[in-house]
């Protein structure tokens, strides 16, 4: 089985009168077909940028600087914007955006918005698109009666389901879900997570979950990537990460997030994430790290610990 391979991906923002913001700075990981990976980190750690970069949707002045992205062995970076748009985006990799209220246009009906990818990507007629849209709604547990409703008439959970139905409309292989449960209440969060798990099993899609919430990740992810200041600081199978976290930052996250479904928040790591326009020279977590040693003045390497577990920390190098 193929899957998604990302190697050394760098995506920066280039504001007019400031140094570039290195939001994603050398990220490598692999997502095997049918599996799932969870990216966890505080807001501003670059995980949303990573998702947008994979779909080539970085808002100006953002740009992919370097790195390789391969889907089933095919280099995606070599594709032109037109090719990428036609054959990859939404068809093979699609995304559930953060904040479903803003991701749905307030002035079009649900049906219209669901039909759009079917019409523009697959060239279906309006009638066919409507039929498939109703199916897509039913697939996420909603009724076809929503077709002629407007987003403001729906609850938050329903909107998130619509968003998921929309992302799955073209049967992609990979679904990137950016904070799919934020701003939903606990019960609805659980329902959405169950839906994602269910869809993964039924449709065999790979899921890349971006969240700040370790509790959410534990529900779905086979593997976990902990992101800090634009870098992956620890990567490995979820059970290993949960049972024996290595990186001081991961440990901090674990301590701050007791494993209660949903309602946990990251807190209590002292200090703030660095300014990504001017990150620390050595380890980016160094200034906040309680276990820092003199070696941390230099950038730490990614250390292989075996069993697919690796960590970016001098304590293990």
């Amino acid at each position, binding site marked *: 089985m193929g899957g998604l391979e990302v190697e050394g991906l760098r995506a920066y923002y280039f504001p007019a009168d400031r140094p570039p913001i290195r939001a994603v700075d050398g990220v490598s990981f692999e997502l095997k077909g049918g599996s799932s990976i969870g990216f966890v980190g505080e807001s501003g750690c670059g995980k949303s940028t990573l998702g947008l970069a994979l779909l080539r949707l970085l808002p100006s002045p953002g740009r992919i600087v370097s790195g390789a992205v391969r889907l089933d062995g095919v280099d995606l970076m070599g594709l032109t914007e037109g090719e990428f748009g036609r054959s990859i985006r*939404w068809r093979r990799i699609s995304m559930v955006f953060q*904040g479903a209220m*803003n991701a749905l246009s*307030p002035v079009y009906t649900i049906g219209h918005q669901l039909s759009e*990818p079917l019409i*523009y990507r697959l060239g279906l007629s309006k009638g066919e698109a409507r039929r498939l849209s109703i199916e897509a709604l039913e697939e996420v547990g909603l009724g076809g009666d929503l077709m002629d409703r*407007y987003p403001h008439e729906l609850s938050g959970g329903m909107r998130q389901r619509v968003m998921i139905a*929309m992302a799955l409309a073209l049967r992609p292989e990979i679904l990137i879900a950016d904070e799919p449960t934020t701003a939903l209440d606990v019960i609805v969060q659980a329902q959405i997570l169950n839906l994602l798990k269910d869809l993964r099993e039924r449709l065999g899609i790979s899921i890349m979950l971006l969240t700040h919430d370790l509790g959410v990740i534990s529900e779905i992810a086979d593997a976990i990537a902990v992101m800090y200041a634009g870098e992956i600081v620890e990567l490995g199978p979820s059970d290993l990460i949960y049972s024996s976290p290595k990186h001081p930052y991961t440990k901090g996250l674990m301590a701050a997030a007791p494993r209660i479904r949903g309602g946990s928040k990251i807190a209590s790591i002292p200090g703030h994430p660095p300014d990504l326009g001017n990150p620390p020279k050595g380890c980016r977590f160094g200034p906040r790290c309680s276990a820092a040693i003199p070696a941390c003045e230099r950038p730490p390497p990614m250390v292989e610990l075996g069993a697919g577990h690796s960590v970016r920390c001098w304590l293990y190098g």
Partner: protein
Amino acid sequence: MALKGFLIQRALNMAAILLITVLLTMAILGPSADAILKRAIEQETRTEILQNKELVGKFKDPGELEDYVKSQVQGRISSMGLNDPWYSPKRLWTIAIRVMTLDFGQSYYIRGYGGSSNVRDIILESLPRTVLLFGTATLLTAILGILIGAAAAKRAGSLLDKIVMGYAAISNSFPLWWIGMLAILLFSYTLRIFPARATPPIPPADPAYPAALLYHMALPLLTMVSMGFGGWAYMVRNLMVGMLQEDYIMVARAKGVPEGRILYGHALRSAAPPIVTMMALALSGSFGGAMITEAVFDWPGLGRLYWEAIGLLDVPVIVGLTYVSTLVFLLSVFMADILYGILDPRIRIG
């Protein structure tokens, strides 16, 4: 049901504001209008009596004649209900009701083309021309402004965007009537392409009149559109720059919606409700400004009529026109409210 309630509430509001406008107009004009009206009646009566030689012959003493004239004047004043001061509730009420039912009475001096002195007729004669000129101008301005504003929003920060913004700032600070004067100077005096006066020199009954009117309309129309679209483009651009940053635009792009449809479909569609409101207000606003613009170009519409009425202090015409322009203004706001509701599904429920 909710819509009906909304409409009724709006209509009541409108009626209340109209009543206030009429009362305010009378409060502002009242004292001077009364004095002018009484003087006019006295003059009219005196001339009438003095022309009647037979009647004058009956009076031996000029003093007696004078007394007779005075009593006649007094009689007419009281028969017209002018005995009470302008602020007496009875007079205010009768006038307010009459004005609100579009009965503006007879003009003092201004006459319609057919010689009519009925203020409503005179206003109705000029109204279509103002609607023709300013309606066309607003429509063209809005279309041009929306297209250019959307294009600028899409390329925010580009040279096109900067040019549009610069032009908007410049054209917004230029008084339209002044540009009108310069346009006459350039196109009528120097280049001799368009006539300097926008009033066709032939009577409205002439079959060639509509064509002549259109030809005479070209210069004011050109001036208004070229001075107006910049401000529109600026507003549309700012609205759309905001809209284009919304997540749903990114989603639409990701879904494969073509750029043109994103811009003119999704983004413009979301910006439509405020744009429609702007358009309604711009239309009524340009009716307000019509007075000056029509005076510059000598366009035979409501504005010029207003201008003439002010010059002659023809109070019934002034009252009628003020009422009509308030009515037009309020109707546009009313329509804008309804359109907003139709265009924005979030409001529709009411």
